[in-house]
């Protein structure tokens, strides 16, 4: 029974679901719920980014650009043009996907540092546009976003809802919605990884030459995963915009792109649980660094560097390997 659980490809999703849904029972303070919801949203974003970075072995230093684009598209469409939020979210994802495809096609021909630079530039351009189009976006001052609503039913952190006879305050409801979104994001990502498409993506990381030899159209697959990860970012950006109710161009900026990539690298490339852990750690860290705010980016940079040197596989896979080795040795000792 337990063995079958260990072999089940989705076992960690069950563990994750339990963690996500047990945590609210232990918290009361709305501030913690706010933080936890932000973590869930950003975790779902990096699960998408991990498909590109961890599995296909490509890099994007401009991913916050897509996140910000989704957020601002939703914000502008719902506030200035009164679009229904769900429609805005879907159209935003389609537009961001299209933009990612158009820029991805040429720049994904680049490798290594060149690709880093090109994606960096994409992120910068998006951030600059958001900053400068201040009539629509409010520029550097940011803009207010209406709460999420669906068929007249509004989801606001200040609301009060009832579910199965339970009274649920708005911040808890938002947490639960974000939790479900993260689980869906993880399940879809895992399905992709376990499919022939995922195999082709991983082969690009493993040996691009081998991939091409057996007929993988590597350019097409790279663009595809770039678009998928951008769509993940866009959707979660839209969700984040409605959740916080106020966004600034910082969410599309370079610093934020670095935070995203650090989450992937720190937690563990090609490990969904790892990148989620990375999101948790890097999102909680600023809370403990409240006194050294100016050094935040420097500290993130240092963490990224130290991880690359000492745990190139990332924290989670390194820890899991250590545990597995320990268990393996102890059971070997008994036999």
């Amino acid at each position, binding site marked *: 029974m337990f063995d079958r659980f260990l072999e089940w490809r989705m076992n960690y999703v069950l563990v994750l679901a339990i963690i996500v849904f047990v945590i609210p029972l232990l918290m009361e303070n709305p501030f913690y719920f706010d933080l936890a919801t932000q973590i869930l949203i950003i975790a779902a974003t990096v699960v998408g980014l991990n498909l590109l970075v961890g599995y296909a072995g490509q890099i994007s230093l401009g991913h916050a650009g897509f996140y910000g684009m989704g957020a601002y598209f939703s914000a502008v469409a719902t506030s200035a043009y009164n679009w229904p939020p769900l429609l805005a979210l879907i159209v935003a994802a389609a537009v961001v996907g299209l933009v990612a495809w158009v820029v991805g096609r040429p720049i994904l021909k680049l490798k290594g540092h060149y690709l880093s630079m090109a994606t960096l530039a994409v992120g910068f351009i998006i951030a600059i546009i958001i900053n400068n189009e201040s009539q629509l976006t409010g520029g550097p001052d940011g803009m207010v976003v209406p709460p999420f609503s669906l068929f007249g039913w509004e989801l606001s952190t200040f609301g009060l809802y009832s579910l199965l006879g339970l009274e649920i305050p708005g911040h808890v409801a938002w947490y639960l919605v974000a939790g479900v979104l993260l689980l869906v994001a993880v399940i879809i990502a895992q399905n*992709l990884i376990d499919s022939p498409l995922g195999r082709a993506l991983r082969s690009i990381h493993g040996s691009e030459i081998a991939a091409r*030899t*057996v007929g993988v159209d590597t350019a097409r697959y790279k663009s595809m995963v770039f678009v998928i990860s951008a769509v993940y970012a866009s959707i979660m950006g839209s969700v984040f915009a409605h959740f916080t109710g106020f966004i600034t161009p910082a969410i599309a900026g370079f610093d934020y792109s670095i935070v995203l990539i650090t989450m992937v690298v720190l937690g563990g490339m090609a490990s969904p649980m790892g990148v989620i852990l990375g999101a948790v750690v890097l999102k909680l860290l600023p809370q403990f660094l409240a006194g050294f705010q100016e050094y935040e980016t420097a500290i993130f940079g240092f963490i990224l560097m130290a991880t690359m040197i000492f745990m190139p596989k990332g924290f989670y896979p390194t820890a899991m390997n250590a545990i597995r080795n320990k268990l393996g040795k102890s059971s070997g000792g008994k036999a």
Partner: protein
Amino acid sequence: MTVMIDVKGLDKEFGGVHAIEGLEFSVEQGQIYSVIGPNGAGKTTLFNLITGFYTPTRGEITLNGESVVGMDPNRLAERGMCRTFQQMQICMNMTALENVMLGRHLKIRSNLFTSMFRLPSLLREEKACRERSKELMAFVGCGEYINTEASAMSYGALKRLEIARALAADPKILLLDEPAAGLNGTETAELEELIRKVAEQGVTVMLVEHDMKLVMGISDRLLVINYGRKLAEGTPEEIRNNPDVIAAYLGG
């Protein structure tokens, strides 16, 4: 016999270096055709030209009558060409079986939608792919490594695994670049047996190899090149008695 590969006036220059010069030959369907020559003669360059990794400076290459000059390796794979490498190209981030399953990439019809939701059609296809890949691993003699990570396999086993991956694509023509390099006597004998079995199934095999015993034993025809030029071409018997070849090899 139908001509599988036809090469005419093939030239490849790297800067001022003439790696391949005016090469002409043709490979017929079902043959085992070997390319031999001293180190640096241009054998691997020739393979890279045929398989689309390099673009010729001049000349014509046709596959089954269709010009394939400037075509990407993945397009050539769609036309039934597959190869292995002197510097093995194995995806070390996958298991042995996944590497072979990757070889069936072009046979799989699943798309983004079926993959995202893991629909039954995808699972059925994957199951068939897994079965076929397991068969191929047994066929090349890697049956015991099915669940092994590629990174944990020995050199000799990886060489066979690479052949299994190429065969998984159901190629019409298979190009093997120094398959016997680094193998011991027993392993080379097994490899010879394997290449014969592959050819018996109707796959055309092109071979770059240094092991003369292997090459002379299994080839239908041989091409000898030196300094990028054709030195001789013919059956193993003809090559063995060709004075130019003897001179190039023995420095006589």
